[in-house]
């Protein structure tokens, strides 16, 4: 959205000289908002006003990139408070914390294996967060090099001592790690370092007001590749801070908060830590630094992240692949449905509940439901035939009988014709599958 007349008017000198060709500053502001004139027509406007107006036209939250190449992580560039209004674009980056006092190479190797394949999707953790616990620049540097050598994925260097940070960051600057963090005590030197190495910089405040001040000081030094940390660590406070940062940036166009935000988990109990991370993931964190590193801890988080960052406008699809529910035999029945995830999982649940092992063949309808697919011509005798062939159903069962959803009974004729299979019309609602299976296939 462009600037409103009121926002522009507030930046104008309000002198009503008419030098811009409009009788009043208010009329000029209106013309600017409507795009009928340009700001340089006003000879009296201040430099600050020019910058404020220029910046306000930029996206509310800046896109910040960490790392290089295929594995680079992008965060920020979000426009919504609620995903149902449009969508969330850049999934929260999950960073696993490793200390430089540990066996870094071994930890990085274990980190690189944190990949998951579930329901046809591939999940990964995105980053390593290397913390300088030793306080020793040389040791931190060696650890940073071990991370750079051990994984393609980007990383965060956590160290508030500028000298130690400079030693480590300079050695791995070509990997463009995120430098954590600029604070009130070190921000001038830390900003210089980030500028010199062209690495993104995390800014750590003591609460929101202090964070805003610090960001303004750093942007005055001419650096804008920033990630925000309010400095708070209690879940409820971090939740409030993340909300405030996102809301101020999107709703109020508050420039100091127009950057992605990050959070750290603090809970010692792994269960509590995952729940804490789940809160930050749901509420606007661009990046989370986790102590958790085990597969069982990470999987629920990456699954929830995948879920949250899907596009609500687009139906979610399951893979159009035949699924065996229960201990199928060549005699097991074959149910036809679509690959819309809601439809598919309802059918799967009911087939499972019927206690009659069976095959489900989801026809690829681009993820739309049975009736919608039928109306759009995507669920037809032809597409059902294709699904049976692609899944090689003839070799999986010793009969040629399929069950069609009751709502598309009208397809029976064309389906029998196209497939050569016998059609049984099933119940209209999947809830009827239990009884249907017992009546037709029960022993």
């Amino acid at each position, binding site marked *: 959205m462009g600037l*409103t007349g*009121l*926002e522009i008017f507030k930046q104008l000198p309000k002198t009503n000289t008419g030098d811009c060709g409009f009788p009043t500053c208010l009329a000029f502001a209106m013309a600017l908002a409507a795009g009928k004139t340009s700001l340089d027509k006003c000879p009296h406007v201040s430099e600050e006003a020019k910058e404020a107006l220029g910046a306000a036209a930029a996206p509310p939250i800046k896109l910040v990139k960490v790392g290089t190449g295929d594995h680079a992580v992008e965060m920020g560039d979000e426009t919504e408070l609620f995903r149902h209004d449009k969508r969330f674009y850049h999934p929260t980056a999950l960073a696993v914390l490793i200390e430089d006092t540990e066996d870094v190479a071994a930890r990085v190797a274990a980190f690189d294996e944190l990949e998951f394949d579930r329901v046809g999707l591939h999940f990964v953790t995105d980053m390593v967060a290397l913390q300088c616990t030793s306080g020793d620049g040389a040791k931190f540097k060696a650890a940073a090099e071990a991370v750079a050598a051990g994984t393609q994925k980007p990383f965060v260097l956590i160290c508030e001592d500028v000298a130690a940070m400079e030693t480590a960051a300079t050695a791995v600057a070509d990997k463009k790690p995120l430098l954590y963090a600029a604070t009130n005590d070190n921000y001038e030197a830390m900003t210089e370092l980030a500028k010199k190495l062209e690495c993104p910089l995390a800014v750590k405040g003591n609460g929101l007001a202090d964070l805003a001040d610090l960001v303004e000081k750093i942007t005055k030094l001419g650096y804008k590749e920033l990630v925000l940390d309010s400095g708070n660590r209690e879940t409820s406070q971090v939740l409030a801070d993340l909300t405030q940062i996102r809301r101020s940036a999107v709703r109020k166009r508050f420039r100091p908060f127009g950057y992605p935000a990050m959070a750290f988990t603090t809970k010692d109990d792994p269960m509590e830590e995952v729940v804490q991370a789940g809160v930050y993931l749901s509420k606007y964190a661009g990046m989370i630094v986790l102590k958790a590193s085990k597969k069982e801890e990470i999987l629920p988080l990456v699954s929830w992240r995948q879920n949250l960052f899907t596009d609500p406008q687009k139906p979610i699809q399951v893979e159009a692949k035949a699924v065996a529910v229960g201990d199928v035999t060549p005699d097991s029945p074959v149910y036809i449905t679509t690959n819309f995830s809601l439809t598919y999982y309802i059918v799967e649940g009911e087939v499972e509940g019927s206690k009659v092992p069976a095959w489900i063949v989801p026809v690829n309808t681009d993820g739309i439901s049975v009736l919608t697919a039928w109306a759009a011509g995507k669920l037809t005798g032809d597409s059902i035939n294709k699904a049976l062939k692609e899944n090689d159903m003839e070799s999986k069962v010793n009969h040629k009988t399929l069950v069609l959803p009751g709502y598309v009974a009208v397809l029976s004729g064309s389906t029998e014709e196209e497939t050569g299979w016998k059609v049984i019309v099933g119940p209209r609602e999947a809830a009827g599958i239990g009884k249907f299976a017992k009546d037709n296939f029960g022993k």
Partner: protein
Amino acid sequence: MFIIGERINGMFKDIAQGIREEDPTAIHYWAKKQEEGGARYLDINTGPAAKDQVKVMQWLVEKTQEASDLPLALDSTNYDAIEAGLELCKRPAMINSVPAEWPKMERVFTMAAKHNSAVIGLAMNEQGIPKDADTRVALAMELVAAADSYGIPMEDLYIDPLVLPCNVGQDHGPEVMNTLRQVKMLADPSPRTVVGLSNISQGTKSRELINRTFATMGIANGLDAAVADACDRELIEAIATARVIMNLDIYCDSYVDVYIKQQK
């Protein structure tokens, strides 16, 4: 969109009589009836006949609040009467109205800020009602800038683009719709919009049909409120329906009843 019930107005005979005889029966009746119909505010207008505007306004405010808890819209060009009424309002009220003229804006926005009340700002000035949308929007902008300088939140400023009867001011119709759309771009958050709905059908046949058709078109163009007949069931149904179609309320089978209930 919500309705500001228009019925407690000294222009109506029963209200005028009530004022004359200091008998609140009609006021109580219409306060309750409009609340049941689905009004969110009750408009209070002393009418032109009242001699002491201040006293009558105070009396009407008191009597209306005896029968209904709805917030009030104090409707007068006499700002002393409005100020006296504001003192008695139990809930934050609405001032109806101020044109884009100094020093009227100064007076009204000062008392609005003091009493935490909303304000209806008319897109007109000393020169009368503008012909085109551009002039209306320019006047709306003056109201927006003035309200902002007095610290009135935009959510409390209701811009009235001024509706004229469609039998004599027919060419104003599209200009009003245009104005409604553009007013939403003046500030962020945007100011709200309001119309005196019944004006559109002044002196026409089938007034209710014209009123509710205008209401649905207004909602599609960003209309937030209307001073209107809260007891016109078909109008309420049309508003509730337009709100569902514009995705302002979540659909359910009983959406009309839900709309009426949620006004309170």
